[in-house]
Each structure stands twice: as structure tokens, then as C-alpha cells.
């Protein structure tokens, strides 16, 4: 019985790092990896790369958050898998807040990419995970979801929705043996943050992947990565709203 990991948004640098950590697992455990994302040509390169690094089997699936039917073949592959099902959700998008401020029609796309598409996928897969009575869900949110800030509050709101969803999903799935891990990364050195101003204490995708593996192993519920963001966000959350609304952070 082998472990399957379904990775949504597999092109992201953090997803690539996590997939490599499975491929190069020092314990010698081999995983069946499903790389799901929009750019399937590029994911095919990742698939070969992961196999050469030691992954058991890697398959590529087209997944587009804006096209809900794209999840069907992935669900089908998962259902026919004889073994534990695990999901890691990295899918997301972060247009500049100023662009959203000018074009309100972008809001629903941001919410779809960062929250509802992944939530719908997890809901659809939930009975199959429950039937196996085991497995892990890794949901990647963001520290931006902890409080709405001037710079990216629509993205933050979508992530906050996803956090809340994961919290309830954990409550439901924990009863049937499925563990749900919420990951809140701070600044990570990815294409999403490349060139943004005001970045500090930037973590590498590989470091985030290491933290995620640790969170999985220790069955943590919510982790901040790097860990010190829990302190930063505790401070940011405790600032009273009447002061916070005047801050430029």
C-alpha cells in the first residue's frame, strides 16, 4: 500500500521543494506524486526531475482553479488508488492590491484561486480520505490571512477564508483519522514575492518544505513558517483596530 500525495498548484516553488523532499526522502519511502497545475508542459519537466531524484511514480494533471471540472480526472485517479490519500494545496494567486482596487472584478478570481477551488476539491475528496481512515491534508495559507492589511487585503481575506475552512475541515476529518495541517508562511523567496519591496527575513522554499514535513510528522494543527512569524503575527493581531486602521504595514 503506497502513499499518494496530490499536490495542487505544483508549479509553485514551495510545492516543488515539498515534492523534492518526498522524492529524496532519506527514509527510503517512495511516494506516488500527482502534480496538478495549469502548466502541464512544465510540470512534465518536474515529473521527470522528481523521478530522477528518487520518487516512486509521478503523474501530471491539468488543474485550473477557475475550471472546476478540471478536478475530476484527479479525483478519479485518487479514488482508484490503493493506499493512503494525502493532499497538499499550494494553489493561489496574488495580484497587486492596487490592480484589484482599480478592477473589482478581480476579487472573485482571487477568492477562487486561494480558497474556494481548493476547498471544493478537498470537500469532493473527503469521503474517499475518510473511507481510508488515514491521510494528511496540508493547506498552505498565509500570514496575510491573519489580519487585513492595506497592501493585500483581498488576498489576505481569501487566505483567511481558507484558514477558517481548514479549521472546520480539521474538526470534521480528525474524527475519521485524517489530519489537517494549516501552514502559514511568512515571506518566502518565490516568484510571487520576487522583486517586491519591503521584504525581510525571507525564507527559502526548501526551509518551508522542511517545516511542512516536520508539521506532518508531528501532526501539528497550525504552523507558521519560519516559526518566528507566530510572534510577529501575535503582535500584529493584538494592535487595536482603531490604531491598526491608520497603519501603513
Amino acid at each position, binding site marked *: 500500500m503506497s502513499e499518494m500525495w496530490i499536490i495542487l498548484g505544483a*508549479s509553485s516553488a514551495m510545492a516543488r521543494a515539498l515534492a523534492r523532499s518526498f522524492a529524496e526522502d532519506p527514509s527510503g519511502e517512495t511516494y506516488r506524486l500527482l502534480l496538478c497545475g495549469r502548466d502541464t508542459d*512544465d510540470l512534465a519537466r518536474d515529473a*521527470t*526531475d522528481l523521478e*530522477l*531524484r528518487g520518487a516512486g511514480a509521478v503523474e501530471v494533471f491539468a488543474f485550473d482553479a477557475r475550471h472546476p471540472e478540471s478536478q475530476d480526472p484527479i479525483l478519479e485517479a485518487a479514488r482508484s488508488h490503493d493506499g493512503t490519500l494525502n493532499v497538499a494545496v499550494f494553489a493561489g494567486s496574488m495580484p497587486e492590491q492596487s490592480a484589484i482596487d482599480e478592477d473589482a472584478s478581480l476579487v472573485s478570481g482571487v477568492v477562487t484561486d486561494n480558497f474556494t477551488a481548493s476547498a471544493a476539491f478537498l470537500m469532493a475528496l473527503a469521503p474517499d480520505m475518510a473511507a481510508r481512515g488515514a491521510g494528511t491534508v496540508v493547506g498552505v495559507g498565509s500570514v496575510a490571512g491573519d489580519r487585513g492589511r492595506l497592501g493585500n487585503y483581498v488576498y489576505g481575506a481569501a487566505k483567511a477564508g481558507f484558514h477558517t475552512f481548514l479549521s472546520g475541515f480539521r474538526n470534521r476529518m480528525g474524527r475519521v483519522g485524517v489530519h489537517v495541517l494549516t501552514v502559514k508562511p511568512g515571506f518566502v523567496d518565490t*516568484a510571487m514575492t520576487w*522583486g517586491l519591496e519591503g521584504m525581510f527575513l525571507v525564507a527559502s522554499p526548501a526551509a518551508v518544505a522542511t517545516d511542512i514535513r516536520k508539521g506532518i510528522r508531528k501532526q501539528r494543527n497550525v504552523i507558521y513558517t519560519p516559526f518566528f512569524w507566530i510572534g510577529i503575527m501575535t503582535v500584529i493581531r493584538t494592535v487595536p483596530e482603531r490604531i491598526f486602521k491608520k497603519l501603513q504595514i
Partner: protein
Amino acid sequence: MPLNTEPYTGWGRVLTGTGGRARPEKSASLARIMGHAPGPAIGALRSYGDAALSDAPAVDMSRMDRLLSFDTSNGVLEAEAGVPLATLLELFGPRGWMPAVMPGTGHATLGGAIAADVHGKNHHAAGSFGQHVLGLRLIGADGQVRDISPDVEGELFRATLGGMGLTGVIESATIQLAPCPSVLVDVQERRMPNLASYIAAFEDSEATFSVGWIDATGTGDKLGRGILEEAEFVTREAAFFQPRKAPKTVPFNAPGFAMAAPVVRAFNQYYYSRIPKTGRHSSKQIAAFFHPLDGLSGWNKLYGKRGFHQFQCVLPPANAALVLDAMLREIGRSGLAAPLAVLKKMGPGRAGPLSFPMEGYTLAVDFASRPGVAQLIERLIDQTVEAEGRVYLAKDSLAAPDHIAPMYDELGDFRAVVRQADPDGVFETDLARRLNLRGTA
């Protein structure tokens, strides 16, 4: 594709790139960049001077780092240019294969190793990195992707090996890995009391890997003393060995006095004496043997916030001993050298017209950036020119066009190929501008 406009530096941290960097993570992003705003490729920023710097946007290839194919029967590997060589050693060493040439740092990328045609501790036998490249996928100034090899566009292929990135962006490369009989090497370290004995030992050495640390502060009868390291693969049944420890990190810039002459002299005395007179034998993991400094992340900060220069030359065998003697006297007198200095015998192997290696001896010495260093290095470069040697473009930050032309006798051919491949100079780096490598100034 967003640009990161933060200034960036090479490993020596003296010079600064100001043109910003794009950093694709997917093939489609790379193609988009190269279609709209092509620029020179940069890798791990492990070249010391301005080889990877530009005042126009550059393309950071470090996230294009995937393995594309591997044939277990013959060791032929294709990978994207951004993969670090250490990763190749780590992944394929236990399977019996390794890069045929490993430079002094495993952080160097595949693309960077090709662009600088790097050499390693086995250069005398294995040649340079570019000699093990079977084919390249090169993105040109026109945005077109070309699969080139010795047989397809051979001139462009050859000019790209050691071509310092001026012919285009290497997207991926196919290389011949070498058999890796063991992930352990037996290392023998011996004291070399002076330059004459050092050179004699190199001449007698038949080791697969050889390299020497040299005390660049030595004067008088200690001139040119050092430690010669020779290594062979462990062929006996491998015993248990400790896995390599995670690298330690230099947390901040060291103060200036860390590299003051008395400090360096004292350190070198200790470093020399720690090897017993009778020599020392040990077994090491190959990664630790190839890349001892990779165990200390950010070691360039030890040279302080002003950064450092490395002078590296290669001298032809006929006058190597004489010129090395003169250079070491000059360096010793200056009191400016850092502890990090290397002597190695090289073979003739080189891959392209701008490749550094030549048969003879290579000397590399670090100097923390401070008054007098630039003048000293310029004098050393003059001596190199006079001795018909070469300075290493991947290390240099101080040479002038007049120095380079006599060193690289195929520079004319190289310029012709580059100007044809890139007529508008979109791949011109700060190094190319400074040394007029395109021949357009």
C-alpha cells in the same frame, strides 16, 4: 516578469550589478523573458568579480534547476542550467556517477560551470568542465532556442564553453558524467617546506586529485611553503563514516583587523603546523574533499564589508617556478594576502577559446579589499602577461583590455562568433564591457 531591482554582487562583493534580475521558475517564464527582454544568464553568483554582473536586466537561472534525463547505462545526464553541481554529486555519487570535473565550490551551477569552463583538483588528467559537455540548449539574442553540439553549430558551441555567458542563455546542458567508484576518498596531506620542493612534489605526483594550500605570507626560506593534498578514491570496502555536518554560517561581516598581516601570519603558521612533519592520512567524503569551504556558508563575509579580490593566474611550465617565486616575494612583502591561497599543477585541457586552463601552474590568492591591493594585483597581472600566462575571468575584477588580449590568443575568433550570435550586445556583462571581450569598444 517582475525584476528584482536590488543591487547584487559576485562572491568577492567588491563590484555591484545594478541592472536588476528576473528569475524564472518555469520554462514558459524563461521563454517569455528571452522573447521580450533578453539578458545575460547568471547562476549562483559564485564568480568573484563582475562576470555575473550587468547594468541591464539579467536572468537569474538558479530556479531552473531540474534534471531532464539520465541514462544509467552510460552516465549521460541532461539538466537545466541552474542545478548546483553539489546536487549532481549528491544524487548520482551513490549511484556510481559524478560530474567529471568539480570546481572548488559545489554551489556553482551547471550553466555557470560551463560558462566559466571551470577546472578541478583532477584537471591534470580530466581536463576542464566544458570538455565533458555533449550538447547545449542555448537561447539566443533573437529569443530562438538552439540545440548545439560539437557537430551542430560547432563554433557557437565551442565559444559558449568558457564564453562567460556572452553567446546566449544556456537553458540546459547534456553532460557526460564520470564513474564514481566511491563516495569516499583517501587524502594524504604533506608539508611542503618551500616552493622548490612543492613544485618537485607536484611534478612527481601521480594522484587522481591534487591541490595545495600555500602560505602566501611566507618569506625567506619559507617562501612558497604549504600543504600538498593528494587523494584517491577509496577502493576497499567502505567503513562507516560520519555524514557531513550541516554548514555553519558566518553571521556578519568580520572587522578589518581579522585580515591584518600578523593575524594572517599566525593563522598560517598554525595551519601549516597542524599537519605532522611525517604527513597525515585521512578518509573523507568526496563532497567534503572537493568543497571544504562549502561547510561554512557566507565565508566571504570573513573579509569584511568591503569585500575581497582573488587573483588567479596560470603560468606555462617553462617559467612557472621563476614567476611564482617572484610573485610570492611580491605578495609576501606586501603583507596583504589572506590565508586562502592555492597552488595547483594543471594539464592542457580546455574547452573553448576563452577558457582559462593551460598546462602549467595555477596560483590563486585572496586579498581583502583595502589600500594597496588593487595596485598589487595589477602588478601581478602584468607579471602574468609577461610570463605568457592567463588570469581567470571568473575571478578577475581588475584587469584591463590590454592585459587580456595577449593572454587569450583566440580572442579574435571568439569576438567574431559573439558578434554574430549577439549583434546588439544584449548578453554583454560588466566583465565583457570592462575587458572589451566583444571587441566593440
